[in-house]
Structure formats: C-alpha cells, structure tokens
C-alpha cells in the first residue's frame, strides 16, 4: 500500500496558530503519513530556535475567551469581556494574555509548541522554510533550527501535488 501524504502550509506566527500545523503533522506522522510543512510569511516564526517570543493576541479576536487559569472554579468560568479599545491601550496586555494562555495550556496537560515541534522532527516530518520570505524579512538561516530545508513554492509543490491531503493554515 502506498504511504499517504499530508502537505501543510503554515502561514501564521502566533502561539495559538502554531498548534494546528504541529498537531496535524505529528498526528499524521503517528498514523504513518509522510508529512511536509511549508513555512511561509509569519509561519517562519515557528522555525526559530527560540520559540518563547510566540504570543497570542486577544485584540481583534472576538473568538478568544479571556478566562483566568487560576482560582476557584467559578472564578475560572468568568469570561472577562474587555473591550478592544482598552486592550489596545493597556501596555503589556498581549504579554499578559500570552502568560495566561500558557498557564491554561500547562494546567490542561497540553503539549507545548517546542514539544510538538520536537515530536515532528523526530517523526521525520519535513520542515521547509520559504527562502523568499527569509530574504524578505531579513532573517538569517542562523535564526532557525537545524535540519530544515529551504525552498520556494515550486519545491513544496513537488510534494503537495502528489499529496492526499493539502491544508493551508
């Protein structure tokens, strides 16, 4: 039987949007799929050596509940509906939201982004960084983890064109 192939295009560089490509890739690899992820534009942030800079922003994101990861159950259940105007004015609001999100992730035993990326690498998921975007944003290959391949859309399409599933994230 032919090995199934999953092709992912990761375009976002925030903490919340780092999860879908790495979860899908590691799960597919666990099921025996051959997987490649093409990281382009802001998605390149997910290939940086240090991932501590990844943040989540509740600003302009009405789908994101603002709940506290500590305290009694009734307190955790409160959705702090803070207007965008206030969020944009309060210094450090994004960092606070990120810290709360990370704590929520830890509290629920969810694997972290560095862990998921490590799983993907070990499961031989091929990570491709978009060279054009690297140049465009003035990044250096030294900014990124070892073992990734650099290429363009044509490189990725060689694999994506034969894939069983191709997703843009």
């Amino acid at each position: 039987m032919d090995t199934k192939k999953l092709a992912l295009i990761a375009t976002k560089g925030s903490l919340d949007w780092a999860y879908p490509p790495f979860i899908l890739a590691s799960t597919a690899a666990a099921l025996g799929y051959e997987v490649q992820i093409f990281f382009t534009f802001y998605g390149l942030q997910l290939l940086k050596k240090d991932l501590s800079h990844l943040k989540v922003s509740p600003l302009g994101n009405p789908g994101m509940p603002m709940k506290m990861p500590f305290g009694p159950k009734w307190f955790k259940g409160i959705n702090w509906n803070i207007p965008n105007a206030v969020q944009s004015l309060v210094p450090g609001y994004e960092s606070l939201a990120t810290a709360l999100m990370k704590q929520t992730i830890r509290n629920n035993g969810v694997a972290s982004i560095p862990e998921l990326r490590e799983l993907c690498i070990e499961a031989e998921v091929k990570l491709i960084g978009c060279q054009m975007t690297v140049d465009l944003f003035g990044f250096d290959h030294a900014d990124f983890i070892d073992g990734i391949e650099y290429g363009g859309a044509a490189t990725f399409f060689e694999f994506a064109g034969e894939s069983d599933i191709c997703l843009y994230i």
Partner: protein
Amino acid sequence: MNITLAEKNLDIRLSPAAEHALAQRQTPLLAEMELLFSCLIRKRVRFGDLTAEDAIPASDRLSVRFRPVMTRVCAMADVTGSPPLDDFPIANPRPYVPRWLAIDYRRGQWLGEFGY
C-alpha cells in the same frame, strides 16, 4: 533512574516524597504515560496498581508504560475520570515516547509529568 522504552532512553525523576512513598509500597506502582491525540495533544500520567503486560519495570516497586490513545469526544473534562479512550495505532511509536518522566507524591496522591 533510566529505562529503555521503544529503543529510547527514558529518564525517570523521583522527588524525595515519591521515593519515600514508593519504599512504603507492598505492590509495584504502575505509571502510565498517556498521550492523547485529539484536537490538541494532551499528556497525562495515570497511576495504578495493575501491571500491564507491556509495562517496563524501572525498579521492584515501579513499572512504567507508554500509552498513545485517542478519543472521538474532544473534551478537556477527560483530564479526570475515565474517558472513553481507545488505543491509538501509532505506526512508529519511538518519536512519541517521552524523554523524561517526573513523579511526585503530595497529600496522599501520586503526581506525574512527562516531556520531550
């Protein structure tokens, strides 16, 4: 202490309280590292007395097992209780086997965490 699981080294770190509590046990403790594949990938260590067939003895009082699971119900509430979990058919488990397992014992309860 270290053991080998799926040809991968697992570093087991016991807190002093865990070491003391283990020494008091009459039967071996099973620490099951559960990796749940769902919308998110969740880690949890379950503890029990029963020894699974594929558990690896780390000492005469502690056995360790890695169990990848899946559920069709994607609920965070599955963190506690007994969720309807099925074994997840991993083609090659080696990459998913953790590198470390930390075990603690607090207020009469076993606590565990694992990572990569």
